[in-house]
């Protein structure tokens, strides 16, 4: 999702799917915020993980 057009399209579709009901001004602001998310998320998404890595603590009922 590096292309700005892709991000804008994703935000519009995902926000609609979640029923957030964003207007055009909100969509523009959230697209900017989500663009920042993609930048901040780059280091973690680039880090390779093995399928065997336990993602979280084991739930103990």
């Amino acid at each position, binding site marked *: 999702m590096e292309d700005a057009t892709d991000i804008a399209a994703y935000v519009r579709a995902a926000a609609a799917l979640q029923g957030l009901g964003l207007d055009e001004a909100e969509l523009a602001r*959230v697209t900017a915020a989500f663009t920042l998310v993609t930048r901040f998320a780059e280091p973690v998404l680039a880090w390779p993980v093995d399928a065997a890595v336990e*993602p979280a603590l084991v739930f103990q009922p």
Partner: protein
Amino acid sequence: MSLITQSAVDIAREIKSGAISATEVAQAALARAQALDPKVNAFTKITEARALADAAAVDASIARGEDIGPLAGVPYAVKNLFDIEGITTLAGSKIEADNAPAEADCFAVAQLKAAGGVCIGALNMDEYAYGFTTENTHYGPSRNPHDLARSAGGSSGGSGAAVAAGIVPITLGTDTNGSIRVPASLNGIFGLKPTYGRLSRAGSIAFVPSLDHIGPFARTVADLAIAYDVMQGRDAQDAGQVSRAAEPVTAALDHGIDGLRFGRLGGYFDQPLSDAARSAVGRVSAALKAATVASPEITAAGRSAAFVITGVEGAGQHRAHLRQRRADMEPLSRDRLLAGALIPAEWYQHALKVRALWRAAMAELFRDYDVLIAPATAVPAQPIGQEMLELGGQTMPLRPAFGLFTQPITCIGLPVLAVPLQNAEGKLPIGVQLIAAPWREDLLVRTAAALEAQGLCRAPIAPAFQD
């Protein structure tokens, strides 16, 4: 200097000795809060009736010859994220202001009260704890007692400002990505973020459940240790609390640091720093004769994981608000919460896995070191309203930059004690993080007490607020 501006230890001793009553101290604390809060905007509610009732109960206990506890008559205040019986828990929001007052104190406040503490109010914060500057649109910004034009940090900004201004010796805050350590750094006071799962968060409004911590602020290490100790205890209401016996640290205050192994974290933690931050870390490291340790290569990914986890879980906590009440939400964080709601599940899953690897990498370091040293913030307090930060030839958004060095650590729940150095940049202080392995808060208290005894790390009331 009046008693109210002394440490909690001194106040409790004087009250127990009968030199002054808890009621007199509470009246003095309330008067100081009323007089000074208009300057710093630390409080959203001063609980006069509650304070006087708490103090009267302490005086009655003392009259009966009872040992009321280590905080006998000590005034304190708590971030308005925590339930205080009889007042509405705002969480820095307009939305929660519609709610009924809390029916009971949360666990932490009940513990402070049981130890003799006197609650004088609720403190300002970033809405729903999402922010590092307490520039709260609904209740106004909290101002830094060292420079009123600058931020008190966040999200526990009111908690930091109230202690630095000498209104109370102890406050309670929360830390999800740095919200205790950032205000501690910017206000020049001590702050403790214990191990994840140590202290009960029940009765506070969650932000990011898998990252949320609570902890105290104080102007002395002894006060910090006492506040931390009295809040320990099992509370079945917090599903995130680990079933573990209380491990008090107050007795360790004078154990010294002989035999402890200190490491200064390099690598990621050498990223662009102000001269003030670099000097502070250097001075603490020199005082502790710390070796230089390269931070694990995965550190940046760990910080990034915290960002993704925060986005997803934070949005999850407020999904209904985002759909129905977003016009009433804080403009500075609303769009970030909305963006968090759109983060793909696969990213979150990946972040959780990286968190596990990052935790394992840091555990390796603790085989060779007892306490690790890192900057708390890259810069001292910045002007309220500032959006960008220029540092080391880079320009970056200021608010997230405050979490640069705190976020990786909270991501894996390690205990951290932020220690202050005064006059780090002109009149502004800055903090340094002392980091230990899980459950080793005792090592942090020992180290901080040693630095305080040396005179390197100390937290006097901000000069403009001294008597």
